């Protein structure tokens, strides 16, 4: 056997290979693929595609918000090329980006992966990525951009396109959108329709000097405020739109433009006449944290907590938000695990929680492994937890 054992014996001659030998024939190589060491009993066509389509397909589709399409086996990128990435992301639980710990309060519109689905995907990704029955034709999946709640009551397109020049990979862009409303309206939901999906990474839609209407992430179902609750939008109000743009790695060195549209969904004025208000507690600023930290504040007025919003400055192994009432009773509000800063969100509680005035809000955050971050962390993201409350 001619093993490749001897480094010293190499001569450079081989690299002066005559052009005639290479140009000699056109060789079609079959068979290499056919003999991969396959240890996965799950195949793409039978087991993997349905999970990916249902759980990942809104973003990981050709032309979709995520720059890696998993909706094909090999064509146009394809799941095989991203198998090792999938394994890494799934095992570290960075993907799917939904970090609610199910041992805490239940949150609406959860999108998690079951242990079984996760195991099937990782088994396939690390077990030779077999395709399976080639005669089984898979339904094509294409990217779609749509309003998840149907056409909005008021659509406010950006006033102009925003362009990321060839040299810029990502940028946070702030703009003001006049609503031109002549009377007060009540908003149950706000959504964003990206103009160019592949570059709109996240957005925050707020009322200028008012509440945050939506924390938008690609792939989410827009969740409206529970019945009988709403955000107040005064006559003549302006919206503040913050969009974080990030070009796909394949669009590096290319100019890309976007013109997104904000959609507002109106509802009746709540019977109480009271609007959803925010109460925020800020974490310590400065250097990245290594040990567990606790921070909080006290509610000056009591109310019903509908949702929590988190903004993280680094990965956290866990984030635990609790209310501590005057009597010392602890009420869990939100629990996150393996949470990553790239995905600030609003979490709507399945069951809103009443809290009296004077209740302390206590956040305990345990930093995660910063070095292992498989995703690129956003710059200048502060550590903050905000409660969306209807006051008493």
């Amino acid at each position: 056997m001619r093993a490749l054992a001897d480094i010293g014996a190499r001569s450079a001659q081989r690299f002066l290979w005559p052009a005639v030998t290479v140009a000699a024939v056109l060789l079609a190589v079959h068979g290499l693929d056919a003999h991969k060491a396959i240890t996965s009993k799950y195949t793409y066509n039978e087991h993997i595609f349905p999970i990916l389509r249902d759980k990942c397909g809104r973003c990981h589709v050709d032309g979709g918000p995520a720059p890696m399409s998993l909706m094909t086996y090999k064509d146009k990128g394809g799941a095989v090329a991203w198998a090792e990435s999938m394994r890494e992301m799934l095992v570290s639980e960075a993907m799917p980006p939904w970090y609610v710990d199910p041992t805490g309060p239940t949150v609406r519109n959860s999108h998690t992966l079951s242990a079984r689905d996760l195991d099937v995907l990782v088994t396939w990704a690390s077990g030779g990525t077999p395709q399976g029955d080639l005669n089984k034709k898979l339904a094509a999946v294409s990217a779609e951009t749509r309003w998840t709640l149907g056409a909005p009551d008021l659509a406010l397109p950006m006033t102009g396109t925003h362009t990321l020049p060839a040299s810029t990979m990502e940028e946070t862009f702030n703009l003001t959108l006049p609503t031109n409303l002549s009377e007060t309206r009540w908003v149950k939901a706000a959504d964003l329709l990206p103009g160019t999906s592949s570059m709109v990474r996240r957005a925050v839609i707020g009322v200028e000097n008012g509440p945050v209407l939506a924390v938008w992430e690609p792939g989410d179902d827009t969740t409206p405020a529970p019945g009988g609750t709403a955000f107040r939008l005064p006559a003549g109000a302006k919206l503040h739109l913050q969009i974080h743009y990030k070009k796909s790695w394949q669009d590096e060195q290319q100019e890309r433009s976007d013109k997104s549209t904000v959609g507002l969904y109106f509802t009746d004025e709540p019977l109480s006449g009271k609007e959803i208000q925010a109460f925020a507690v800020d974490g310590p600023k400065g250097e990245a944290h290594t040990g567990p930290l606790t921070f909080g504040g006290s509610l000056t007025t009591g109310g019903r907590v509908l949702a929590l919003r988190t903004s993280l400055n680094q990965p956290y192994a866990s984030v635990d938000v609790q209310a501590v009432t005057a009597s010392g009773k602890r009420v869990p509000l939100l629990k996150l695990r393996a949470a990553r800063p790239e995905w600030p969100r609003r979490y709507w509680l399945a069951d809103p929680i009443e809290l009296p005035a004077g209740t302390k809000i206590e956040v305990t955050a345990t930093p995660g492994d910063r070095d292992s971050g498989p995703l690129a962390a956003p710059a200048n993201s502060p550590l903050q937890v905000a409660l969306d409350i209807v006051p008493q």
Partner: protein
Amino acid sequence: MRQSLTGFLVLLAASAFAAPLVQGPKQNAAAAQQKLPPLSYVCPMIQDAEVIEDKPGNCPKCKMALVPIRLDSKYSCPVHPAVIRDTPGTCPLDKRELVRLTLSVFWTCGGEPDKQLLEPGKCADGQPRKVQYEPRPHGDHNPKHGGQFFMASDNWHHLEGTYPRVGLFRMHFYDDYTKPIAAKGFSGTVVVLDANDKEVASFPLAIARGGRTMEGQIKDAALPLKAAAKVKFEQTGPENRFDFTFAEYSKEPPPVPAATTAGAATRVPATAAQSATPPAKPSASAATSATTAAPAATDAQAPAGPAPQAGGAPAAPSPSTDVSQVPAALASALDESALPNSVAELLAELTRRSQEVESLVKEGSLGQVWLPAMATKTVALALDTHAGALPERQRAMASAAVKRAVTAAWEIDAYGDLGNKQKITDAYERLASAISALKTIYAGSR
């Protein structure tokens, strides 16, 4: 004639061959046509990935006809091998340092992603062929010198630690094909650990005569020896830690006659044939391919070239190309049908299997720990089918704990290849904590 892959790669890296895939089809085609990596001939069997010849012929190991490929050296994101670059730098997706990768480069036409052409050019419809890269599978991770075999976290350097006689610790180095490489520019130390993994002594590693191994003279070391090697592959690079446990002195295996591994029938990855170690892990981690940013050509009949050289072309893929070859030990670890049905018995089995993980971690058998880890998650998944009987709150908690157990098992599987005891120990602790949570949840429901 012998070849050295490393020398080959160094030269490849020095001369820019094909343009990076992200630069667009025109430059790709132009650059690729100027210079192509030379043809190499490899064995179609993944287990024989180390066979690389510069002439056609038959595989010396399995006797099948060698198939031609072009090998190139590129840079890639450590966890996103789909991203391929010509030069070192940072990953556009996660900003980690790019790592060196050996790739097979080929071209395809639209609609025929499996037809790998070895030349650029035009497809039948006039569209340019699309350049593609496929990382070569890692070589087998079986020890070659009776020691313990690990892969560095850069996925490229591989190494084997041996303790051939009292006082001598030796490391052999390999590339991602498991070809021996020179230890040139490497530096490091070997530290001796006590039973609690505390460092008790440290000795320098020096490049040994011949240049392909590093050796450390360990004083006062009795068997069993626990030691950790801390190695830098580049002066300014990161330090890699590898944990070894030697229960006995390493013995060079006798040379294996080709006949014992030959034949298409022996498809099961080479296992304990060469050493006294338990089954080696099947290696298929690099079986990924990357595509270009070039627009996909429309469906067209690509010019089907003549079959590879004499000696018999490999058969065209059958309708179902992939034949699952699960080694028996793994198949048994993954078999849920043989498990007991009751929750109590499943919990007991879960504990038993996780204790196997624990004892292997404790004794430092890092290369073997993946198997009981897989067996443990199999039980956890079976247990999850009983979660429906729990009250809603407990059900969510139990399923979350099963998921933690499954991810921890897969972490152990990945870290086992790297030989980092601390990481495996941490992952084992996550596994144990998930199992302990499962016991509490199910005990409370009875």
